[in-house]
């Protein structure tokens, strides 16, 4: 395809691609996001390619590796068109059957269909799955429709039309006004109104101005930004170009963590192709607007997701935040006005421009507009990426979309907002999720991680996990965060080992307050949230650890001991073999015993025993 010199040429190219690909009605879509690749999507894709070649169908059937479909629990996902038949968990050996029966025969293979674990019904199409049916996938839904390596695919589904509209019909002020009235708030964690950010940046004095896409997603269990950048890189680039036009910038950076090699590769290829077609670079679509994008690879420091630390890292300095008393929209990268948004925010922009702020602002709640992608992980049946309108309740996400908690266990709490977020207890599950409601409940939206925890979870242990994560990942610059997290982890260590004192709860709370008030950046200011929210909702659990020396969930190793029930023990000797401390004694046919002095409470015997003879006390 040749370079596109105007909006008209873009539209011509679009209709050419559409008529061209229309001749190939049959297509096979293989989800090739990182999650499905880990489950063998590459082998499945290869098997399809071989099979189609063998049958001389390569030209007739469009084989499409796409980005993440979101239903990561049951990858690799394969969708066959026409008909939209969805097969989950496909293996390479099933490929010939799928090609001969479904692709050629138009038949639905019952055995390969998804069976709903609750109702037992088979689902044929995507919309038949409860997981997809209750979502509103306006952002991530396009992942399924395109090969991230093909700019034609993106143009075919209407890509770069929003950029064309902006460059031909709108002034920068119009764009800002549109984004402002859409009510879009930053999806990276802070929830700052995007339109207002752009406006301040446009007004700020200083040249050149920069736009940055923050793809340094580091929350444990969160991967929606990776999936977007991996699956639909052009959407992000288009959003950035529109933002750059609005604030008056001609240079952009995408800061991707190096742990995301596929995202880096896909976005680099997208930049290259967009440049070739004149959708990035100089004089875009003949409008006179220039915009270049560079990809910067981060070293995987959690703190580099903080805007000023990220900018320091791009400037090749140590990734630590600096005070933001003068905002980054006025003095950001290289002390120039800078607009930084995260991947999901940028991906929302083309949708807003194309379908209009009025349409967009009808989705969501009063204070939080649009949809939000959550990564639903933890003790949940359907792990995956879930996009729902703001204001959806936890209950709907966990039970309708997520399929509930595995093994019939009870829900205990949901951790939102990553390590800086908080734990929402099960009694608040009817709460509509938006920025303000989460903050009020002592947590935050963060980038949209949602870790579901069942009754086997110890809240002190969870608080300890997140504090220890942040202790490692704090940049170490300011005292309250660096020293406060160390002391917090020491106190929690004491409590979980049964050495705690009741006064330590007050000390924890006072320390948490100081960290919130005195820390330099948002990492430190929110670092105490996991502790504060668990004390707020699960205080009795802390007290049980301290006062009764009991871990109610039987998780904290210092407060749990293992014994063998001689009635059940068959003396098989398996536990004796796995015990790393040689604490288990017993002969054949004699019930075994655990020497409590030697036992290090690792739980290896508990997991090995087939008969349930080992009991946690």
């Amino acid at each position, binding site marked *: 395809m040749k370079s596109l010199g105007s909006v008209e040429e873009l539209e011509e190219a679009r209709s050419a691609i559409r008529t061209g690909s229309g001749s190939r009605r049959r297509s096979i879509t293989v989800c090739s996001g990182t999650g499905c690749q880990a489950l063998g999507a590459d082998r499945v894709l290869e098997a399809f390619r071989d099979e189609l070649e063998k049958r001389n169908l390569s030209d007739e059937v469009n084989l499409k590796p796409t980005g993440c479909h979101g239903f990561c629990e049951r990858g690799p996902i394969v969708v066959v068109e026409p008909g939209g038949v969805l097969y989950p968990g496909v293996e390479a050996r099933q490929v010939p059957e799928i090609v001969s029966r479904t692709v050629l025969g138009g038949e639905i293979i019952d055995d390969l269909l998804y069976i709903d674990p609750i109702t037992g019904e088979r689902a044929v199409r995507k919309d038949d799955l409860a997981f997809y049916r209750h979502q509103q996938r306006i952002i991530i839904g396009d992942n399924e429709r395109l090969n991230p390596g093909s700019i034609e695919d993106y143009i075919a589904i209407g890509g770069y039309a929003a950029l064309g509209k902006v460059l031909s019909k709108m002034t920068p002020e119009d764009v800002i006004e549109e984004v402002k009235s859409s009510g879009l708030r930053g999806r990276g964690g802070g929830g700052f109104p995007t339109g207002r950010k752009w406006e301040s940046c446009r007004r700020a004095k200083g040249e050149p101005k920069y736009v940055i896409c923050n793809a340094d997603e580091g929350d444990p269990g969160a991967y929606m930004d990776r999936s977007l950048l991996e699956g639909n890189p052009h959407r992000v680039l288009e959003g950035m170009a529109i933002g750059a036009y609005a604030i008056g910038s001609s240079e952009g950076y995408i800061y991707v963590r190096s742990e995301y090699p596929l995202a880096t590769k896909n976005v680099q290829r997208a930049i290259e192709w967009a440049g070739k077609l004149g959708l990035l670079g100089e004089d875009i679509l003949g409008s006179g607007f220039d915009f270049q994008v560079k990809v910067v690879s981060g070293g995987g*420091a959690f*703190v580099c997701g903080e805007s000023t630390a990220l900018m320091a890292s791009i400037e090749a300095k*140590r*990734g*630590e935040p*600096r*005070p933001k*008393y*003068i905002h980054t929209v006025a003095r950001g990268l290289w002390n120039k006005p800078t607009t930084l948004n995260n991947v999901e925010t940028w991906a929302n922009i083309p949708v807003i421009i194309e379908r209009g702020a009025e349409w967009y602002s009808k989705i969501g709640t009063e204070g939080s507009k649009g949809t939000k992608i959550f990564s639903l992980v933890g003790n949940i049946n359907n792990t995956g990426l879930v996009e729902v309108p703001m204001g959806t309740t936890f209950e709907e996400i966990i039970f309708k979309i997520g399929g509930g908690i595995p093994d019939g266990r009870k829900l205990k709490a949901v951790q939102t907002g990553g390590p800086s977020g908080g734990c929402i207890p099960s009694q608040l599950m009817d709460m509509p999720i938006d920025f303000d409601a989460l903050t009020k409940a002592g947590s935050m939206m963060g980038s949209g991680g949602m870790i579901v925890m069942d009754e086997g979870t110890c809240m002190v242990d969870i608080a300890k996990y997140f504090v220890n994560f942040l*202790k*490692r*990942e*704090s*940049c*170490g*610059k*300011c*005292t*309250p965060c*660096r*020293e*406060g*997290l*160390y*002391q917090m982890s*020491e106190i929690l260590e004491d409590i979980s080992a049964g050495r705690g004192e009741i006064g330590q709860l007050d*000390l924890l709370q*006072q*320390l948490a307050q*100081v960290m919130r*008030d*005195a*820390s*330099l950046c948002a990492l430190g200011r929110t670092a105490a949230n996991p502790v504060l929210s668990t004390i707020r909702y699960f205080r009795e659990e802390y007290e049980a650890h301290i006062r009764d020396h009991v871990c109610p969930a039987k998780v904290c190793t210092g407060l749990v001991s293992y014994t063998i029930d001689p009635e059940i023990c068959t003396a098989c000797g398996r536990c004796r073999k796995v015990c790393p401390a040689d604490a288990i004694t017993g002969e054949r046919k004699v019930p075994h015993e655990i020497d409590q002095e030697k036992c290090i409470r690792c739980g290896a015997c508990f997991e090995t025993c087939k008969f349930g003879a080992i009991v946690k006390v």
Partner: protein
Amino acid sequence: MVHIKLNGVEVWAEADWSLLETMRYYGVDVPTLCHHDGLEDYGGCRLCLVEVDTGGRPRLVTSCTHPVFEGLRVRTHSKWAVETRKVVLELLLARCPTSKTLQDMAAKMGLSEVRFKPRYEDCVLCGLCVRMCEEQMGSGAIVFVNRGQESDITTAFDITSDQCRRCGACMYICPACELRCGGPDAPGVLCGSCASPAPTCLNVYDDAKCYMSETACGTCLGRPKASQDDRGISEGRK
């Protein structure tokens, strides 16, 4: 020139002054550790926190890095600011319990107990030496390495640096390296006797180890340097 309200009093300041400079100009003192007049401000130690109100919610800011602008309202000794500064100092003291500089600050601020676990580190990570080396000496031989709890200040790759001219500026500016006081008391309790007009340190505790050089620590003795010898300071050091 801008006008700000400092502890209820309207004062003027030059537009390019920091809040700390303005406060010091008017004789209002807050403790500082990572600040030095000759170096770029860092905002790391968080000891110079003050409460500001810019029309919205009041918040605590580091006065060394905060600019002054028209209409800014500042309260340097509100309960919130004072209590928060105390806990920050407590955290620093837990890191470096033997730092004389920190102990003196504690005595001045009325902090008499550290409730946190002592770590017995030597370095407070204020970064003064790093900035001294880079900004004033133009060398950049020492840098911060690692992050979080592993944060440290050292030469690149931990080997003798070719950049280092052994000027000693880092040692000169360090508030923690040189001045150590083991103190007479158990960890956690601060005697504060150095700052007291009636010192207890040497008289009461026979085995007190004072590592202060005579010039650096005179307060403990409450006497001019000339007469220190007859107080038996050299014996105390054994």
